[in-house]
């Protein structure tokens, strides 16, 4: 029988899985694999500048293309650096296969150089993880890894590859089929339950759809839109569900939750049937659980049975893929009389529309509006913080547009690398990264990756010289104790400073010079009229990334805000 070296079977397996891009950072225990990849022309290896960013890049690639993101790192620090990225992907159900090198089997447990138990470290934050113990299992393990990552509720899979097994000769076979006795992802929909659920909708006076990220992952937005148009039931979304239905659709209300829109939070609090698909009712969505949708009977459709009745007790549970459920729902739908209910909702919208008060400096809302009208088919990627919430509030998502954001984990440093991954997967679409001055500097080194691959990502930094989201919480709920949030701070500043003043030292990172240091373009925007020219210049820079630093008001806030533990109706509006 034909024999192959482990590394050769590894590359063969990637090709059989249709992998054309690998995010890889070399090191001692994976040099053999990189040597094999060197000989293979059909797989592009992207070299990031840090392994955390590597995972976010594969994550952005996977979210934007729907393909499995493939990561390859070395043992020890290489593997340990992936932890935050893996957790980020896990919480947002992103399909990744992360291969880590490992010291040879006979050295494991000896505290060998660059030995860490990465499977132990990631056990609680990945969908599945295992260390290869036999060369003969290599093909099967890789096959299963891809299968587990992309099916059911998708998620990251970690496979640890001891160096000695990768250079060992063994079977050349890559299996065609998968059969894992403990893993049978749910298929189909229980039609009886579904009819019961829809029966509730027809009887409801104030029905409401709550759409989570599951609908976007299933790429079932068109089915949802058709359902809503035929039934006339209004829709609220979670941050991860935003864009499942066009945001300018007349039956779309907005995001709900901690920074949700007034009308959306009111609608969910007043509705009598809440029909939810693909959400896990996180605390940022529900706020005080006992007050959440307390007038409503709740239907919950989710692919993950463990998500059902975990946080919210539901009346009708249905375990199903969002796409399959919506396709089945379309067979039984009918028009609901929601005219009066929509009137009430429109009243709330008119009462408290979203909008930022004009402030000093550049208004983030204006920047996002410029992005809305300029980039039709595009991918917008955010980091985490105030700019992220403004983006989820003001970004318009219509057909062909996508928003990538770290929703579950809220990982600062996600934005730039994820935007790079998205651009690699979608070279023909504009990719705009919206970041803050804090998060941007958590993975700033990826500017080098973007420059190396000539990726024209437009990076908008909303710079207010603060870790603004925390500053805002301190302002509202901690007696304005601005503890460790000022990024202008220097030795000599009053540690109990009560906010910005004319005595503040200058902001220390010059993002324009920093861009230039990376051989990229940098533009600073301090006035509203500079927004359009800056973007025009950035769009002309097609050979690499452009940083546009927007100097925004230091005291800008995200409104509405619901304090943790308070009911959703308890919104601070301004």
């Amino acid at each position: 029988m034909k024999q192959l070296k482990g590394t050769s079977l590894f590359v063969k397996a990637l090709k059989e899985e249709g992998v054309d891009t690998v995010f890889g950072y070399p090191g001692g225990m994976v040099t053999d694999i990189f040597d094999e990849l060197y000989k293979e022309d059909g797989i592009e290896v992207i070299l990031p500048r840090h392994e955390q960013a590597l995972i976010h890049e594969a994550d952005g690639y996977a979210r934007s293309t729907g393909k499995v993101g493939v990561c390859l790192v070395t043992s020890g620090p290489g593997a340990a650096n992936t932890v935050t990225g893996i957790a980020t992907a896990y919480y947002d159900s992103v399909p990744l296969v992360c291969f880590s090198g490992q010291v040879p089997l006979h050295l494991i447990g000896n505290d060998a150089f660059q030995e860490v138990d990465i499977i132990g470290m990631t056990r609680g934050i990945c969908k599945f993880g295992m260390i290869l113990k036999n060369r003969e299992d290599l093909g099967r393990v890789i096959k299963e890894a891809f299968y587990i990552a992309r099916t059911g509720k998708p998620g990251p899979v970690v496979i640890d590859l001891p160096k000695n097994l990768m250079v060992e000769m063994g079977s050349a076979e890559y299996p065609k089929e998968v059969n894992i006795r403990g893993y049978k992802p749910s298929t189909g929909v229980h039609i009886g339950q579904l009819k019961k659920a829809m029966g509730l909708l027809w009887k409801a006076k104030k029905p409401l759809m709550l759409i989570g990220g599951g609908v976007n992952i299933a790429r079932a937005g068109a089915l949802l839109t058709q359902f809503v148009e035929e039934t006339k039931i209004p829709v609220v979304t979670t941050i991860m569900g935003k864009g499942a239905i066009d945001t300018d659709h007349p039956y779309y209300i907005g995001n709900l939750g901690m920074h949700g829109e007034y009308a959306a939070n009111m609608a969910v609090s007043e509705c009598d049937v809440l029909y939810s698909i693909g959400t896990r009712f996180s605390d940022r969505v529900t706020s005080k659980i006992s007050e959440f949708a307390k007038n409503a009977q709740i239907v919950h459709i989710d692919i993950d049975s463990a998500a059902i009745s975990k946080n919210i007790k539901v009346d009708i549970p249905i375990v199903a893929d969002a796409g399959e459920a919506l396709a089945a729902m379309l067979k039984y739908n009918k028009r609901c009389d929601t005219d009066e209910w929509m009137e009430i909702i429109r009243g709330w919208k008119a009462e408290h529309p979203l909008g930022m008060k004009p402030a000093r400096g550049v208004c983030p809302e204006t920047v996002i509006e410029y992005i809305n009208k300029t980039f039709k088919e595009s991918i917008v990627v955010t980091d985490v913080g105030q700019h992220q919430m403004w983006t989820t509030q003001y970004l318009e998502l219509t057909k062909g547009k996508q928003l990538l954001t770290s929703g579950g984990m809220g990982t600062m440093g996600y934005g730039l690398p994820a935007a790079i991954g998205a651009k690699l997967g979608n070279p023909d679409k504009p990719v705009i990264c919206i970041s803050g001055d804090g998060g941007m500097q958590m993975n700033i080194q990826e500017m080098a990756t973007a420059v190396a691959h000539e990726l024209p990502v437009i990076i908008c930094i909303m710079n207010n010289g603060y870790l603004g989201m925390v500053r805002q919480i301190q302002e509202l709920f901690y007696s304005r104790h601005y503890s460790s949030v000022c990024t202008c701070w220097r030795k000599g500043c009053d540690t109990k400073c009560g906010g910005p003043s004319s005595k503040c030292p200058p902001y220390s990172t010059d993002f324009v010079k920093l861009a230039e240091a990376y051989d990229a373009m940098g533009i600073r925007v301090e006035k509203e009229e500079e927004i359009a020219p800056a973007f025009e210049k950035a769009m002309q820079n097609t050979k690499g990334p452009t940083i546009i630093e927007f100097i925004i008001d230091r005291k800008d806030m995200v409104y509405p805000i619901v304090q943790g533990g308070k009911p959703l109706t308890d919104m601070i509006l301004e």
Partner: protein
Amino acid sequence: MKKRWISLYVENYSGVLAKVAGLFSAKAYNLDSLTVGATEDPTVSRMTIGVISDDATFEQIKKQLNRCVEVIKVIDFTSIPIHRNELLYIKVACPAKEDREEIFRIAQAFGAAVIDCDMENVLLQCVQTEQRNDSLIALIRDNFKDIEVVRGGSVAIESISMM
């Protein structure tokens, strides 16, 4: 809150015990007892798990276990007739003759076996439900100062005649 029992069929490879035990600690489930051993099929292990929880948490525990790739099957023993026992060893220091005789009488009453002894110590082995073992321990603790207890955790299997 009450005590409940689950049986798990799991893959028999390294890391599975850590996965299951880690799930309980990560999610702050109240794990009371966990035993594991290979089955008649060497690729499959079976765990017997005792948890203390309310109804909603118990449902969640079963679902979380079910979604582990390594878990082949979850059986809720709540309403299934089962045989369940725990292995208990108690070493009792009893230098006085009358104390040793008292221990022998207690052992007989509880169906425990005297498996080792010298003139100063007696070692009992008791295979009973964990509640009955609790009672035996309580009784001996109340009457003897110097004792040593090792418990194995419960194992359980579905009943044949009472199904």
